[in-house]
C-alpha cells in the first residue's frame, strides 16, 4: 500500500463507512434559547454548532455605522476552548476566527434581505461546541436556521457543504476531520441551493483543474441535500409552535 492511505476503499466505502456521496447524519433544533430573537443547534456528524441571532435592533455603540438603506450584519464566530482535541487558548479573536466571521457574513449577506431594515443591526453569534471537520458549513447551516427562527426575511436558505477528491479520482462530499487530516484538498462552498448560486467558495490545497467541475457539482449536490433536511426541520418546528399556540394571531381558524 502506498504511503498515503486510501480515502475510499475498493468497495466504495469511506473511513467512517459512508459512501462517497453520503452526508453525515444531520440533526437540528430551532428555538433552543429564549433570550435571543432566534436560535438553532445543529449536529453534522460529530460537529456541533450553536447559533443565536439578535435583531434587527437599533444600532448600538458606534451610531455612525448605521446605514439609511440597509441593516448592518454583524457576525461573530467562536470556538469553545474544549471543541478541539488540543485545548484552544482563546475562543475568538484569533486570525482563524476573524476570517471565519468574515466568510460567514459574506455567505449570509447574500440571502438576508437587508434593504428591509434601514438603520438597524442584526447580530449573529455562532459557537462551535465540537469541531470534527466541516466547521464552516455547519456554522452557515446553523446561522440560516437561527435567522429563520428569528423571522428575518431571507431570499432562500443558505447552505454550505464541503467536498474533496479521493484517490485522485472520486469526488466525495461532507469531509470529516479524519479525512481532512489524511490529506486531499478540501473545497468548501456556500450556496443558495434553489437558484444554484454560489456565494462563497474556498479551497485548501490544490488539484488539477479538470477535477474542479465534478467536485464542485458534488458539493452543490450536498448543499441541496442539506437544504432538504433543514427545510424539514423548519416545517416541523413551525408546526409544533403553531399547534401549541393554536394558530391564534394568524388568520387561520382551525378547530381541534
Amino acid at each position: 500500500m502506498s504511503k498515503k492511505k486510501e480515502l475510499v476503499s475498493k468497495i466504495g466505502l469511506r473511513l467512517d463507512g459512508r459512501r462517497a456521496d453520503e452526508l453525515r447524519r444531520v440533526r437540528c433544533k430551532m428555538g433552543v434559547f429564549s433570550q435571543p430573537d432566534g436560535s438553532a443547534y445543529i449536529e453534522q456528524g460529530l460537529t456541533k454548532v450553536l447559533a443565536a441571532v439578535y435583531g434587527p435592533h437599533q444600532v448600538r455603540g458606534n451610531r455612525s455605522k448605521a446605514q439609511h438603506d440597509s441593516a448592518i450584519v454583524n457576525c461573530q464566530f467562536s470556538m469553545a476552548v474544549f471543541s478541539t482535541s488540543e485545548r484552544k487558548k482563546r475562543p475568538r479573536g484569533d486570525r482563524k476566527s476573524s476570517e471565519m466571521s468574515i466568510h460567514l457574513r459574506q455567505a449570509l449577506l447574500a440571502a438576508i434581505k437587508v434593504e428591509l431594515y434601514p438603520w438597524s443591526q442584526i447580530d449573529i453569534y455562532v459557537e462551535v461546541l465540537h469541531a470534527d471537520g466541516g466547521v464552516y458549513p455547519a456554522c452557515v447551516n446553523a446561522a440560516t436556521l437561527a435567522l429563520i427562527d428569528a423571522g428575518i426575511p431571507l431570499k432562500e436558505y443558505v447552505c454550505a457543504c464541503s467536498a474533496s477528491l479521493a484517490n485522485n479520482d472520486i469526488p466525495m462530499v461532507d469531509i470529516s476531520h479524519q479525512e481532512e487530516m489524511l490529506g486531499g484538498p478540501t473545497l468548501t462552498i456556500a450556496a443558495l441551493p434553489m437558484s444554484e448560486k454560489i456565494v462563497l467558495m474556498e479551497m485548501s490545497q490544490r488539484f488539477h483543474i479538470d477535477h474542479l467541475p465534478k467536485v464542485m457539482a458534488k458539493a452543490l449536490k450536498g448543499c441541496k441535500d442539506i437544504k432538504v433536511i433543514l427545510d424539514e426541520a423548519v416545517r416541523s418546528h413551525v408546526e409544533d409552535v403553531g399547534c401549541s399556540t393554536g394558530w391564534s394571531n394568524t388568520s387561520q381558524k382551525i378547530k381541534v
Partner: protein
Amino acid sequence: MSNKIHIGIASDRVNPSVALNQRVPKIYTPGEVITEQNELMRGHGTYEEDGCLKSSVAGLKEEVNKLISIKPLKSRYNGEIGDVVVGRITEVQQRRWKVETNSRLDSVLLLSSVNLPGGELRRRSAEDEHMMRKYLQEGDLISAEVQNVFTDGSLSLHTRSLKYGKLSQGVLIKVFPALIKRSKTRFHNLSVGASVILGNNGFIWICPTVNTEEESVGGFIQNLEYIVPIEEREIIARIRNCILALAQSKMMLFDTSILFAFEESKKYAVAELLLPEAMVDVALLTQQRLTLLENQ
C-alpha cells in the same frame, strides 16, 4: 445553607411541547414559490423573482383580496396604533426619550406627549426640557400607548392617560410578542391579588394591585419606600413562574390562561415551579382547562 440543586442529564430532558393534534395549515418556507400569477400584490414576508411570488420567511399565508403576505410565527414587535407597550428608557435626548420596546428600532416618547405634573393644559417650558431626566431617566420602565408608526417602522409613544406612565415596583418578563393574545384590555387586575400589564410588544409587567383613585397625578411617581408584603411578593413570583412555564410551552398568554396556570400551580411551591417537569405539568393542565372551556 443547603440548597436543593436539580441536575438532569441531557437524555431525559423534558420536552416542553404541549402541541395538540390539529389540522396543520400550509406552511411556507424561505424561497418557496407561493404563486406564479403576477396580478397579485406582494405583502410582508414575500418578494418577487423571475415573475414568481416567493416567500422570504417561514410561516403562514395571509390573503386580503389581492394582497398576499407570509406571517412568521416569531419576529420582532411590529407596532400598531393603539397598542399598549411596556418599554425601557435607553436615552434622554432633546425634547424626547428613546425607549426600547422590542421593536426593530427604538421608539420615541416626545416630551409633548407625556402628562407632566400640573394638569393637562400645562405649557412645556425650556425648564421642562432641562428637567427631563428628573421625570424619566435611563433604565426606567414605562407603560405607554403607540401613537404613531413612522415609515421606517419606528414608533412614537404617548402616555397621555393616567393608566400609563412610569412603573414602580414589580417584575418584568420578556416573551415573544406573538404569544400575547390580542384583546381589548391590556391591564388586568387578577383576582388572586396582583396586576398584570400584557404589553403587545411581549413585555409583561406584574405588580402589586394598586387602587387607581390614589394615583391621580399620573406618570412619574415611583414609590420605592413602600414595602410590599411577603404574601403579595409570593403571588407575584408565582405568576411570573406560571407565565414563564406557559411561554416555554409556547402557549398564548391572556388573563384566563394566566389565572388557570396560577390555580393549577398551587400544588407546587413557588421555587419548584422552575423545574422543567413542573413547568410542563402546569402548561399541560392549563391547556386541558382551556380546551374544556372552549368546548363548552
